[in-house]
Structure formats: C-alpha cells, structure tokens
C-alpha cells in the first residue's frame, strides 16, 4: 500500500469516552460530523462551572454573579477570537438551525418580498434549507438552488448567473457539506454576492471544528457554527453577524435580558450582542465551549486540518478495497473535509451501520438531514464515516474490516441461496 502522510495528532487519551469498549473492542468513533466527543477538560469545565461558579448572568451584584458574568462573557471573547470575530457581534444561540432561523425571521421577514429570491445549494442541510422554504412561502418569494456537479462541487459561473438575475436577496450555503464533504469556496462566493448587494449566510457547522476559519476574511454577513461538533457541549452555537446588519434588525426572540427598558406598552432593545439573546442563556455550556476552543487552539487548527486531511486521504485510499463500495463527493482529500459518504451495492446503509456496530465501529446511516441532496445523488440514503482529532489510521482499518465483514454476512448467505425446499 502506498504511504500516506502520517497524521500528526495523538490525543485519544484526552477523551474519556474513547476508553469505552463495545462488543469487547475499543470503541471506534467515526461520527464526529454528527457530534464530536469531548476532552476531559471540557467535561470538567461544565461540571466545575455548575459546582463552583453558578449564578445567573447580567443581573446579580453579588460576587458569585459577577464571577458567572465574567466566565460567560470571557467565553464569548475566546469563542470570538477563535474565528477572528468581534465579541459584540458574536451571538450565542442553541445551534446552527436556530442561528439560520434567527436570520430568516429577523432579517428575512423584513427584507425579502414577493418576486424576490433566496439562493441556496442542492447540498444544504435541512437546517439551512427549511427556514428559507418557510420564509419564501410566507413572503411570496422563490427559493432557487445552485446545482452540485458530479464531483459534489458548485460552479462559480452558476453563482454569477443566478446573481445577475437581480432578484436574489439572500445567498445561504454550507462552508463544508455534511454529506459530500466538499469544501466550498465561500470567500469567493461571498465576494460576488456582496458585490451584487446580496445578504450572505454561511453554515459553518462542519468547517469550524476541523480547519482554520477567519470570519473577517470570509466576509459574510452571517456565519454560524455549533459548539457540540467542535468538542464543546450541546446546546450552544454561535452566530457571527456584520455589525451594521445586526444593528438594523429587529430582535428574533423577545423577553428577558434582550431589553434596555420596558414599560407597559413598549420596550427598547439591549445593545449587541444581547439584543439577540432573549432569556437566560446557556451559561455553563458557553463556558465549556470557551474551554473547547482553547483546547483546539492549543492543538492548532492548521495541525487539526492536516491531521483530518491525512485521515481522509487514507479513507479514500482504503475504502475502495470494499467490493461494491461507491463514494460520493470530491475524490481528493484536499477538496473535502474529514468525512466519506458511501453506499455498498446490495446492503442498505442502515444494515451497514448496524453491522459496523457489531465491531464497535460507530458510523451514521441515513439521509443526513439532506433529503433533496439524496434525491440529486439518486440514492435513498448513504453511510457516512467522519473523523475527529482523536481518530487514527487504526480506526479507518477497523472500519474497512467491519465493512468487509458486513459484506460477508450478506454474501455468505447469498452463496447458500437455493430454491426453497417444498
């Protein structure tokens, strides 16, 4: 087998859950595109905040409350710095789906009207698709799709063609596709859209956890990502917005914490970013996310990308050893994030995932919240293996072994097939 650049990280021991054994074997976790595992220091930070520093934020004058405040706002500053953003325009949300809904409701309903259009791609996750469908239906606008080609890539000419039609108000695309793995040229696309006066929204859920991302350099009006895929806990996501756009918007959710003053018949809004954070936020989770991005920064996002690129290259090299396996998405590791979606002739993806589980190998099967893309690819579902900082080549070998065994379960019986005896 030709040599593939050895991946450089060796951090498995930092992740307590990976000491778990499945079916008597060490767990092989290859579902980080769904959610990442968490290093001990993140788990400890979550517990430590609740154990020693818990109070509500933005309210108390006592020392404990000030501590909680400092921890929460300190986490915001670290999270913003991680992606090159300004803390004042870095809004904590529940997840990317909520971030996109925030934009679709608070900006979309005020700015998209009948006869106008929202432009997305065929490869979007439902989270960056359904909110736009709903907006367009409500406002009498049309939802148009940029096609993905056979390699799973977008065409910049098609982007320009669509923008030239003059009716597009919003362009919303994933930075990295959660099914194809394609890394989209978001900076180039954003540049064209902004030149056309179109609002740009990037779903960075699959990008921020695995590669250096600088939201200033990308230049989108909105860039969303989620903590739980980036070694942080569930329940906390991030929306970076352009200041002028955020200032011009009405709030999304209203109520506590997001007001400056309230009288019986009206209210004025708090400053950024709190104008968009109604109610008590996810304090402990945000604090733990701050620790997660510190961990990633210590590893270095260039190294994280190199590690995951090398593992992806190894996957792309090894997976074709499984007879009947078909990969979707770009064929080169340089063009994709750390995942591989595939089908195997004669075995449904559900059955592939079930049989992988027998070997302790955790992979995802299904439509990956991207049903329109599945139809475009002409498959009902795919199996998907995705890597994280804690994976190594042995995990990929285990996957290939499990896939070969899965085929055996189905094939061995095929060889036994004979007409049923009467």
């Amino acid at each position, binding site marked *: 087998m030709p040599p593939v650049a050895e991946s450089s990280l060796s951090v498995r021991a930092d992740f307590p859950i990976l000491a778990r054994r499945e079916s008597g074997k060490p767990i092989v976790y290859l579902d980080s595109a769904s959610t990442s595992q968490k290093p001990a220091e993140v788990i400890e930070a979550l517990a430590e905040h609740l154990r020693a520093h818990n109070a509500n934020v933005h309210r108390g004058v006592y020392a404990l409350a000030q501590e909680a405040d400092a921890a929460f706002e300190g986490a915001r500053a670290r999270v913003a710095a991680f992606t090159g953003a300004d803390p004042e325009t870095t809004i904590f949300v529940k997840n990317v789906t909520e971030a996109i809904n925030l934009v679709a409701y608070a900006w979309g309903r005020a700015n998209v009207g009948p006869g106008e259009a929202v432009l997305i791609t065929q490869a979007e996750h439902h989270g960056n698709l359904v909110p736009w469908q709903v907006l367009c239906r409500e406002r009498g606008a049309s939802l148009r799709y940029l096609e993905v080609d056979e390699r799973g890539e977008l065409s910049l000419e098609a982007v320009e063609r669509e923008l030239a039609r003059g009716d597009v108000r919003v362009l919303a695309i994933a930075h990295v596709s959660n099914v194809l793995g394609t890394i989209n040229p978001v900076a180039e696309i954003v540049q064209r859209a902004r030149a056309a006066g179109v609002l740009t929204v990037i779903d960075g859920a699959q990008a921020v956890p695995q590669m250096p991302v600088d939201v200033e350099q990308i230049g989108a009006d909105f860039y969303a990502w989620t903590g739980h895929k980036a070694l942080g806990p569930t329940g906390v996501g991030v929306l970076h917005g352009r200041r002028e756009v955020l200032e011009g918007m009405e709030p999304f959710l209203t109520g506590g914490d997001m007001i400056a003053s309230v009288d019986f018949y009206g209210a004025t809004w708090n400053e950024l970013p709190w104008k968009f954070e109604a109610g008590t936020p996810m304090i402990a989770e945000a604090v733990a996310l701050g620790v997660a991005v510190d961990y990633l920064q210590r590893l270095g996002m260039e190294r994280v990308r190199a590690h995951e690129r090398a593992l992806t290259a190894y996957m792309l090299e090894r997976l074709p050893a499984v007879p009947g396996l078909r990969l979707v998405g770009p064929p080169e590791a340089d063009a994709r994030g750390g995942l591989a979606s595939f089908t195997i002739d004669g075995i449904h993806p*559900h059955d592939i995932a079930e*049989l992988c589980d027998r070997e302790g190998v955790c992979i995802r099967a299904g439509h990956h919240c991207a049903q329109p893309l599945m139809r475009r690819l002409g498959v*009902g*579902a795919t199996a998907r293996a995705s890597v994280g900082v804690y994976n190594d080549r042995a995990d990929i070998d285990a996957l290939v072994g499990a896939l070969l065994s899965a085929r055996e379960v189905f094939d061995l019986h*095929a060889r*036994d097939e004979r007409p049923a005896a009467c």
Partner: protein
Amino acid sequence: MDDLYRDYILDHYKRPRNFGVLEPHDLEALEHNPLCGDELGVHILVRDGRIEDLRFHGQGCAISQAAASIASEELKGMSVGDVAELDADWMIELLGIPVSATRRKCALLNLKVVRGAVTGDHSWPT
C-alpha cells in the same frame, strides 16, 4: 449465525415476495421512514371484504424489506376488518428476530402502510 440477519431475513430481502405494482387495485398508500427517508408503498385488491392480492413497492433496509415480504404472505386472504386490528406485536413476532428500538420503525413500516391503506389511519402501529 447472526441474530438479526438470519437466512430467511436475507432471503426475503434479496427475493422479496409480492413486490411490484398491482393494476388495477382498490386501495393504496405510501409512507416514509423518517429515520432514513426510505419509502414503502402498497397496492391492495379487495374481494368480498378480504385482501385478494397485494404488492409492495419502494426501497429500504433488510429489516423493512424482509418484514414487508414476510407480512405480505400473511396478509393475503385476511379480512379487511382483521387487518385493521393488527398491532406492532403481530409484526415483531412474525418477523421472529430481536428488533432494537432504533430499528423498530423499519420493521413496522409495512404494517403502517397497509393499515393506512385499509383504514386511513396513518399513525405508527403500537
């Protein structure tokens, strides 16, 4: 031998009985498994209050396809009233394999489709 992927399950998966279309038919329905987006439809011909013939169509995993195939053989000849009374236990028992919570909907999709066609009730069998 594998507990789940037994010979007869794989046999029904690879050579499903009563799959295809049935024209003409009296009843039909189409349902999805939300977990994977798989689709299963049915055409049913009714005579004298009984299922005279039926055909499933669609694609799915070994569990959902085998369950539909196995059920189809039992459903033929059954009275429409009896079909309306079938529950999840009937299907799981008929399938004869340990079905985990995550695969339960795979196993029950065919019954959901058939009951939906017969009664108009599109809820999951319990």
